[in-house]
């Protein structure tokens, strides 16, 4: 199950941190490191549970957060040795560098949103390809090709495929057989019952098609939500067992 697709929805550790800061409504300039670190690690953990590829950048950030956290926990009594005024001026907050990066990143994330808006406004207008002007070329010029580079050709290829994709949906969506989630939920319950109410998580994904995997996964989430099943896992990375709950 490799859903390293955009499933996680985050563009990297900074994006995830911004999300946490927003969710917990904390001040970006005064981040409660302990809480944020804990939440951050929980996300990483969840991603691993989902067998998502956790990019190394996320782990580097986790280490950074832990380092900041420990620096902030340094025994206070040492500080008493210094003049209080001095300390305020001299000592650097271990969070400073991280805050600087977050604020910087946030600016561009915001700019990206603005571009997105412009892009969608732009998508409401249509144009046409330049007309074929070859009939207007003089005979002796016909053999010549100027102002065309490899790059133009690559662009053209790109365009061909874009157009092909744009044309495609009308032809393919009809033939896809959709499995309703409710149906899959029933199937999962029945298959659990048939083996005494307990099954390995991975055994539910035997049919390899992508849609089947997606629907099965969502059906499991839904079954957990309505408390029809329970999931347990003894250790990190060990097999997850699905158990039927009393109805």
């Amino acid at each position, binding site marked *: 199950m490799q859903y390293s697709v955009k499933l996680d929805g985050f563009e990297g550790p900074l994006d995830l941190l911004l999300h946490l800061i927003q969710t917990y409504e904390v001040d970006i300039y005064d981040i409660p490191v302990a809480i944020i670190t804990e939440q951050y690690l929980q996300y990483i953990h969840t991603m691993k549970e989902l067998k998502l590829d956790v990019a190394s950048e996320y782990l580097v950030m986790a280490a950074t957060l832990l380092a900041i956290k420990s620096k902030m926990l340094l025994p206070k009594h040492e500080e008493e040795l210094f003049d209080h005024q001095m300390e305020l001026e001299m000592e650097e907050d271990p969070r400073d560098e991280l805050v600087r990066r977050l604020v910087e990143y946030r600016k561009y994330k915001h700019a990206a949103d603005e571009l997105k808006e412009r892009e969608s406004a732009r998508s409401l207008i249509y144009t046409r390809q330049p*007309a*074929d002007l070859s009939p*207007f070329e003089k005979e002796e*010029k016909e053999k010549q*090709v100027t102002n*065309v580079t*490899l790059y133009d050709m690559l662009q053209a290829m790109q*365009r061909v495929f874009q157009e092909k994709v744009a044309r495609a949906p009308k032809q393919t969506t009809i033939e896809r057989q959709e499995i309703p989630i409710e149906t899959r939920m029933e199937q999962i319950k029945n298959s659990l019952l048939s083996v005494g109410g307990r099954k390995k998580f991975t055994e539910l994904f035997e049919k390899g098609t*992508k849609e089947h995997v997606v629907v099965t996964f969502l059906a499991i989430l839904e079954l957990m*939500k309505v408390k029809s099943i329970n999931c347990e896992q003894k250790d990190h990375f060990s097999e997850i067992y699905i158990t039927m709950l009393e109805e």
Partner: protein
Amino acid sequence: MERNEIKAVIEGLLFVSGDEGIDRKQIAQVLEIDVKELDPFIDELKKSYEASDRGMSIVEYAGSLQFVTKPEHAVFYERLVETPGHSTLSQAALETLAIIAYKQPITRSEIEEVRGVKTEKPLQTLSAKGLVKEVGRAEGTGRAILYGTTKAFLEHFGLQSLKELPPLPENIQEESVEQEADLFFSKFQESLTVEDQ
């Protein structure tokens, strides 16, 4: 729908459909009106383009309507072709050339399958410019002509051999990945809706 809007959309449709043209049935479908209702609008539009201060006119070939430039302005388009900065290959020709370069040997109908449109004219242009040529015949019935690029093609793009063509961008495959992600989220949202009921 207002009369003015119908007129405007017909003009816009003629414009976006470019050199391919658009037939009356399609226009009627887009506007969700009866084909017969179109006539007065098209006549009016045709007439307005006949004025001497207009640059295009509307022609109808084999049931397909399209904008074309006026013959009396030909001299200006000839000049345009010669202005520096004007690319000498049309977009259609470039696309066709790209497909041939990456997928040769290839038949015309295979090219048309990828592009989704007729490709006779661009192929003629490319042959005339010596960039592509016939390299053989396909097996099977019809024995269609197979096209490939020429030595002049390599020279023009400064390539030693076809192996030096830049690799095709990965995101051509990416598009299908995005569709899968979409499938995931649409399923997921579907499940949320179910839950709300």
